[in-house]
């Protein structure tokens, strides 16, 4: 199984790759995890991961700077139905638009805009940085075997913006930071996490293994 982590100059790529390798090993899955910067390899991939660290507009510009990359990702996941996982800004890019600093077009796969977390109290710092628990709104294969809720496992978040889902059936899991915030969005073979599974120890490695086994 070829798993491509899209390398477009954004994100903590190395740690993502290492986490995927570790999760595959722990789950005894045979997976070739590659950092990929050419569209041809994306088209040959069985699964695609889009990481992202940084500002929405810069990530989008970085992706568009690789000629044919977005088209290859789109063909692979939308036309051919390969499983896709977006992480952090990679997840936010799945939205219609990003409103960080400027208005930027997203992929339009998950209905909604990426908007600033609105501070709702004097003690609510922005960005949300740190470990928070997850509330599952509806079952999803990516959360198989992961204990959620108040006493569940923690996920690591670092973000000032959030994907405000228009279709609540696409909002699979939320976290609470002055109100519910999309933690996992999904539709068909597409999924995205606001948190960083590659930095979320047990929860993250389990979710990554689930993604590698996922047959949507």
């Amino acid at each position, binding site marked *: 199984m070829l798993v491509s982590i899209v390398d477009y100059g954004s994100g903590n790529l190395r740690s993502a790759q290492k986490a995927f390798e570790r999760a595959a090993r722990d789950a005894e899955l045979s997976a070739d995890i590659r950092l990929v910067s050419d569209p041809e390899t994306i088209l040959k991939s069985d699964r695609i991961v889009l990481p992202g660290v940084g500002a929405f507009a810069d990530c989008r510009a970085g992706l568009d700077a690789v000629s044919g990359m977005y088209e290859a990702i789109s063909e692979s996941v939308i036309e051919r139905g390969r499983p896709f996982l977006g992480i952090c800004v990679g997840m936010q890019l799945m939205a219609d638009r990003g409103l960080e600093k400027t208005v930027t077009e997203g992929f339009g796969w998950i209905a909604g805009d990426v908007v600033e977390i609105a501070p709702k109290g004097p003690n609510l710092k922005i960005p949300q940085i740190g470990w928070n628990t997850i509330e599952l709104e509806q079952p999803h294969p990516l959360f198989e075997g992961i204990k959620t809720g108040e006493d569940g496992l923690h996920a*690591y978040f670092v973000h000032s913006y959030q994907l405000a889902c228009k279709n609540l059936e696409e909002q699979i899991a939320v976290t609470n930071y002055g109100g519910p915030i999309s933690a996992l969005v999904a539709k068909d073979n597409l999924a995205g996490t606001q948190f960083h599974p590659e930095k979320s120890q047990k929860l993250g490695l389990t979710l990554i293994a689930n993604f590698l086994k996922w047959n949507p």
Partner: protein
Amino acid sequence: MTLKTRIIPCLDVADGRVVKGVNFVDLIDAGDPVEAAIAYDAAGADELTFLDITASSDGRAATFDMIARTAEQCFMPLTVGGGVREIADIRKLLLAGADKVSINTTAVNNPDFVADAADKFGNQCVVVAIDAKKVSGEGEVNRWEIFTHGGRNATGIDAVEFACTVVEKGAGEILLTSMDRDGTKAGYNIPLTRAVADAVQVPVIASGGVGTLDHLVEGVLEGHASAVLAASIFHFGTFTIDQAKAHMQKAGIPVRITT
């Protein structure tokens, strides 16, 4: 669901090796930052901060290698600071495996650098490290100034005002070290921590002076810090991360219990 208060061990490294002593019981090589990182990862630390005090470019290369090796084995967030002068430095650190980059002197010399970094990598990735020392006398209204070069160079810049400036420029987090308290084990400088934490919208990490577990609690409850950083109490095994978390939890602070 609540965001948990973070406990962050900090390691000083030079040329890819830990320099301020680390003396864990089970560590084979106390000077290897990767081993220290693995030990902290297993112990339930919420993040790790590496402070690179390397002077030479060769040493810098060793540090990049160290970060890369750490990121291969620790699936927890890493902040790296020290020697960040250009945007390209940040890119290199992120590609090596850092998740956040801490900027100190460069931000003091040129606050617009913070804006450039935040535009490029997002606010969440940019930590500004502020080293502050009290300059007001007894009986005067508290005033703290920024110092650089290990506390030798006064800048005349007010620490609270500077914190507000860099946050406006796009800093996503403030790592606030009291130079008066650093290494004293007398506890965080609570008035300073509180003044900065209450003045800015972003999380403030308290640093400098931890000697007891009560100091961690004070940093959060009285200093209003979102995270607490400590070095020697953890490095020398005075307290474990678990003990620190249990103590904070008893004081009513939400923490992430991993065991």
